[in-house]
């Protein structure tokens, strides 16, 4: 007979079977059994200082490595503190398993101390979730959770485990395979559809590839590059796909959408065919749907059938894994080579020449775009960049040199301020030898600034670069452009802490740069330091992010399509 193990031990053994090496979490009453097991487990547990950070760290870990990220929290407030992090992972399709304790089964439903219906709460923001009521179901539930999180369109899965289930005993039998008959994602695309797609590409005169996060999730960056090489078609990469195709390559249109490049937006508006791969026509890309790419037919490749036709009518839907489908497309393209679309590429080159990404230079102030460009130059595509949310995020997207996938980690779908710093911790844990940088804002950093304690504790050498404009800059920009300069609750001049001193209080190196001349030296010092650093970069306060397609607008009608220099 198999020896019986406690639920907590079964959980840890199951995680080991899933090759989990690191967990981010925070203890409490209902996870005491689990923490007792973690006390001498091989799995390394990182104690964060707020559960939200555990979820973001697991998310950053997953995005940068492709492995499933794992976070752990106690019941009630611990579990609800994970919610923003789970929703962030859900919107960006990150493989994550969130484990929460809950009150013992006999206390469920009685408004017991620290009880929260976390499976109910997270139903709309998880790919799936489980409440394990019997220790005999625990191992197979963990197996299913990891399978669901990482297969198909990845996403977060939550496992809620009542305290008695972690204490009760059962034989530990971990299944090698799991088959969920009601869940079998389609991997291979229909050859018939793929052939029609190739046919359409042949006939098109002005095709554009729209590359999305699905390409990164499917590890299809190599295949995308081959496909582009063969087809010589221009590629626009969404925020989630930055780096999937070399950002500065000759066929790159960089990023499309609200703060995308003017040349990407004009090209999409003029396109007669969109080849959309693993992207979901988010409103930040499309503006008003009815006027998006008005001349284009659409080929839509996605592993999630529900994405196809959700926003845009699709002529050729292809359901499948981006990598597998691209391989087949490459095959048929080799069989049936494409004439280069010379006239179209010439038009695009003209657009690129006419509308470069640009900003006002200054010797006096550090322009935030200049700061990002400086970081890009100094890191030469080798660092992993995380961001928070705001103007600094958009400039990071625009001006960093995205050479490889999984090197730009940013909250796209949910737009979660407070994501960057804890995500960077997770990235650093997954990539101990890489330079990990978080480009953040003075607003965003304060949404998880307590993690200074965590990075100090574990000497996680993340470099946090605060583009400090003393504003909730992105909101200020909207108030300037659309609300008559009425700066309501966004001006933080004189109200922000001294970030250098804050860092130092946690025993973390704090540096400041206030002029363009001193910036490279300060950054060099930060990057050379073998430990975490906060760099307070005092930037020009009222810079705006351009181009800008106003919300619900049309892609070819941008404010500041020449970088705002024309305004």
């Amino acid at each position, binding site marked *: 007979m198999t020896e019986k193990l406690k639920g907590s031990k079964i959980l840890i053994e199951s995680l080991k079977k899933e090759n989990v090496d690191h967990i981010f979490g925070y203890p409490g009453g209902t996870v005491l059994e689990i923490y007792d097991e973690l006390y001498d487990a091989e799995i390394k547990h990182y104690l964060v200082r707020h559960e939200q950070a555990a979820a973001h760290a697991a998310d950053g870990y997953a995005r940068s490595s492709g492995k499933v990220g794992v976070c752990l929290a106690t019941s009630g407030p611990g579990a609800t503190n994970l919610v923003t992090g789970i929703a962030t992972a859900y919107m960006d399709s990150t493989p994550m398993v969130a484990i929460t304790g809950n009150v013992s089964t006999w206390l469920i439903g009685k408004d017991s101390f620290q009880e929260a219906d976390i499976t109910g709460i997270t139903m709309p923001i998880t790919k799936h979730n489980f409440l394990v009521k019997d220790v005999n179901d625990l191992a197979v539930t963990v197996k299913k959770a990891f399978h669901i999180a990482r297969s198909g369109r990845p996403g977060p899965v939550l496992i809620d485990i009542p305290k008695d289930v972690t204490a009760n005993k059962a034989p530990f039998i971990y299944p090698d395979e799991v088959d*969920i008959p*009601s869940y079998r994602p389609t991997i291979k695309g229909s050859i018939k559809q793929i052939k029609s797609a190739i046919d359409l590409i042949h006939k098109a005169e002005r095709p554009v590839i729209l590359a999305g996060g699905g390409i990164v999730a499917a590890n299809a960056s190599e295949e995308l590059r081959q496909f582009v090489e063969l087809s010589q078609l221009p590629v626009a990469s969404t925020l989630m796909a930055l780096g999937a195709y070399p950002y500065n390559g000759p066929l790159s249109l960089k990023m499309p959408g609200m703060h995308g490049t003017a040349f990407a937006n004009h090209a999409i508006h003029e396109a007669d065919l969109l080849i959309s791969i693993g992207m979901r026509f988010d409103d930040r890309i499309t503006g008003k749907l009815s006027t998006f790419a008005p001349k284009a037919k659409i080929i839509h490749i996605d592993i*999630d*059938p529900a994405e196809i036709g959700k926003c845009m009518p699709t002529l050729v839907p292809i359901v499948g894994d981006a990598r597998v489908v691209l391989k087949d497309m490459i095959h048929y393209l080799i069989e049936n080579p494409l004439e280069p679309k010379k006239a179209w590429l010439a038009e695009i080159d003209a657009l690129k020449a006419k509308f470069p990404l640009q900003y006002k230079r200054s010797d006096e102030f550090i322009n935030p775009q200049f700061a990002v460009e400086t970081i890009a130059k100094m890191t030469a595509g080798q660092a992993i960049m995380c961001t928070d949310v705001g103007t600094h995020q958009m400039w990071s997207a625009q001006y960093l040199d995205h050479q490889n996938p999984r090197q730009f980690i940013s909250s796209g779908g949910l737009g979660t301020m407070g994501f960057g710093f804890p995500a960077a911790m997770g990235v650093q844990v997954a990539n101990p030898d890489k330079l990990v940088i978080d480009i953040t804002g003075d607003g965003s950093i304060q949404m998880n600034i307590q993690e200074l304690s965590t990075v100090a504790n574990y000497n996680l050498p993340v470099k946090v670069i605060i583009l400090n404009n003393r504003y909730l800059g992105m909101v200020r920009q909207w108030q300037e452009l659309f609300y008559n300069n009425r700066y309501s609750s966004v001006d933080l001049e004189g109200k922000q802490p001294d970030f250098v001193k804050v860092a130092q209080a946690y025993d973390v190196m704090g540096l400041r740069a206030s002029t363009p001349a001193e910036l490279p030296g300060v950054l060099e010092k930060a990057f050379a330091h073998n430990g975490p650093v906060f760099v307070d970069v005092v930037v020009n306060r009222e810079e705006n992010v351009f181009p800008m397609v106003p919300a619900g607008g049309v892609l070819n009608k941008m404010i500041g399509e020449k970088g705002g220099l024309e305004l």
Partner: protein
Amino acid sequence: MRHIISVIVDNKPGELVRIAGLFSRRGFNIDSLAVGETENSAFSRITLVVTGDDQVIEQISKQLYKLIDTYKVVDLTPLNHIDREMLLVKVSVTPTTRSEVIEIANVFRAKIIDVGDKSLVTEITGDSDKIEGFISLLRRFGIMEMVRTGTVGIARG
């Protein structure tokens, strides 16, 4: 257009919540809903009546199918199918109107299942049109209370 969508899910607590939640958060409306075990007690069938254009119905079907515990989603509307709902209705009657109500019930093949001093309870099954027709004929007598199930449906053959 009105569609009858039949969904086979695991017969587990919480499945109905997942489906109801999906409808509310995606802004789809449910006109009616019926849940019950299938021939195999491991599964339950949820029959939904929804209204929407083709694009909406396609999204509803795909989103339902995307739920991990969903096995099958069938739109019965374009298929050759039978659908039924059931109505219990308490009608107020007087000695003079009583026979008239019974006569209408007979025409509709409804059953009289309770007779009181001042009321009758009748039971009818049929498709929505028949039920609607029955209700509208009873209105003038005074409907005191009525209970109506969601539609259930099955493909022919």
